[in-house]
């Protein structure tokens, strides 16, 4: 016992490097989990591929868009749709972790409070990167081409990924609030539909009734799609890119602190 008494107490504060180091540990865990459930990755990839094929070949012929071809209009939209749907994973996975008790273990460890969410959203961003690369290949197979040069292509991908990352924080908050994987699945998808379909992803908002057009033109998905499309096709204006980045920043500034607070609260 006397040896125990001599032992010093552990540090009262975490080292400054903890937030990053712990997030890396958690991200690694999440990525391993994604890799080891390939069926999940396969099915979540099939869905956007189906969208591409359906819209390109079934509806595409009937849709008029202000672009050279429907494929060049559609694919940048699909990139954004893919990351937005992909980011719902954060809600399901966190609800699942909560239910399984592993979040309790993490909360009882001397680790950074932000790491579980930072690691989750980082892993989801990696997954989104993988799926976007796949969608680019699919796009090239259906006659989509990047026309804005190398930097345009990189910029388009970066904005799509950042938007997915910001959405991941929103869905992290949803997962922590609903606490149940099945509910998280539904709660995640339903609010997305109006944002995804009443946007410039598939059609030009000009074809919508005026009240809907106003929403469709000003909501974040359209703003981001316009920037991604502009950068992909080489027609981007500064204001397209700036307004997309502002939406992304606003979402991060709102949802990251809210989700982190919810995680601390338990």
């Amino acid at each position, binding site marked *: 016992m006397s040896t125990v008494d001599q032992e010093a107490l552990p540090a009262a504060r975490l080292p400054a490097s903890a937030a990053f180091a712990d997030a890396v540990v958690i991200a690694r865990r999440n990525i391993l989990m994604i890799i080891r459930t390939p069926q999940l990755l396969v099915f979540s990839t099939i869905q956007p591929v189906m969208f591409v094929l359906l819209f390109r070949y079934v509806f595409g012929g009937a849709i008029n868009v202000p672009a050279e071809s429907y494929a060049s209009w559609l694919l940048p939209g699909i990139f954004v749709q893919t990351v937005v749907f992909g980011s719902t994973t954060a809600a399901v996975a966190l609800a699942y972790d909560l239910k399984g008790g592993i979040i*309790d273990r993490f909360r009882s460890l001397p680790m950074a409070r932000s790491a579980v969410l930072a690691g989750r959203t980082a892993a989801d961003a990696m997954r989104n990167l993988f799926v976007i690369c796949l969608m680019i290949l699919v796009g090239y197979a259906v006659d989509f081409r990047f026309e804005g040069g190398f930097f345009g292509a990189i910029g388009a991908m970066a904005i799509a990924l950042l938007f997915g990352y910001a959405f991941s924080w929103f869905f992290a908050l949803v997962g922590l609030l609903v606490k149940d994987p099945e509910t998280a699945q539904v709660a995640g998808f339903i609010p997305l539909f109006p944002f995804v379909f009443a946007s410039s992803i598939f059609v030009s908002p000009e074809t919508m009734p005026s009240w809907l057009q106003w929403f469709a033109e000003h909501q974040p998905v359209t703003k981001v799609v316009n920037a991604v499309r502009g950068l992909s096709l080489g027609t981007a204006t500064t204001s397209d890119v700036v307004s997309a980045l502002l939406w992304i920043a606003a979402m991060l500034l709102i949802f990251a602190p809210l989700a982190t607070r919810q995680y601390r609260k338990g």
Partner: protein
Amino acid sequence: MEASVQAVEVAGVAVSFGETRALDGVDLSVPRGTVQGLLGPNGAGKTTLVRVLATLLRPGAGSARVFGCDVVNDATRVRALIGLAGQFAAVDGTLTGRENLEMVGRLYRLSRKDAKRRALESLERLGLTEAADRVVKGYSGGMRRRLDLGASLVGRPRLLILDEPTTGLDPQSRSDVWAFIRELVDDGTTVLLTTQYLDEADNLADHIVVIDHGKVIADGTPRELKARMGADVLELHLTDPDLLEPTAAALRGIGSGEPSIDLGDRRITLPVHQGAADLMSAVRRLDELGTVPSDLSLRRPSLDDVFLALTGRGATLEENEEVGHEHR
């Protein structure tokens, strides 16, 4: 750290969930290097107290300290001092046993090398070396539980908090876990253990508190608690549950305390001081009543009897009956 500091010092802790008072002014003090048993029926507040000590839940009132560190104001320190193994095996199914433990080691702020070494140590100690590189999904329930226990050990905690560590385990795994806990205590670890199994508390705990409705209703060593029950216990089983009440009423006045009824097991227990004489009086009363018990015995008191007398309920819960009976 001063030598007088207790491993756990809980004073007046209260926790409410809406209208429900889960903990209603609990005091508890656990000296270092001892095993503290926490007993109580389901919903008594055991897990709530565990969550307060593990920094997962802020108490609404009172204070809780682990080696002198406050669980609210000094939570980071408390987290570095404790290891927690919960009721649900909180390990990742898609990771291997080794990966799970290395991850937890890293999160205890160990270097990569130390995390690897401690993970191996833990796996070896818990007999999981063979399974170390298998994905946890393929583990049996007992193996998962052992891995969960292993995860709570990689940080070499000074206080190990175990919430029902053997619930649902087969007898062999259970006694393995017991042996393992004893080993840790021999090494100087303090253990706080909740359990539904009274023989578990009897076997492992130096000191026991019984809580019910969020309050401590008894505490002492297992021996002290059993001594409250008198020298012996008279136990009788009935096949007809309707006869329990009248039979218990007829037995009142015999022995050294009130008869207790366990509806689930259809039995009555009665603390007695003069075994043989009290047994004969009981038989005479049963005869007058015309009741023939299916079983009648005189035995040493167990913690089970203490629990029944204190809470008016059997220790095993209805929904867990199958699990409980296995271990009787």
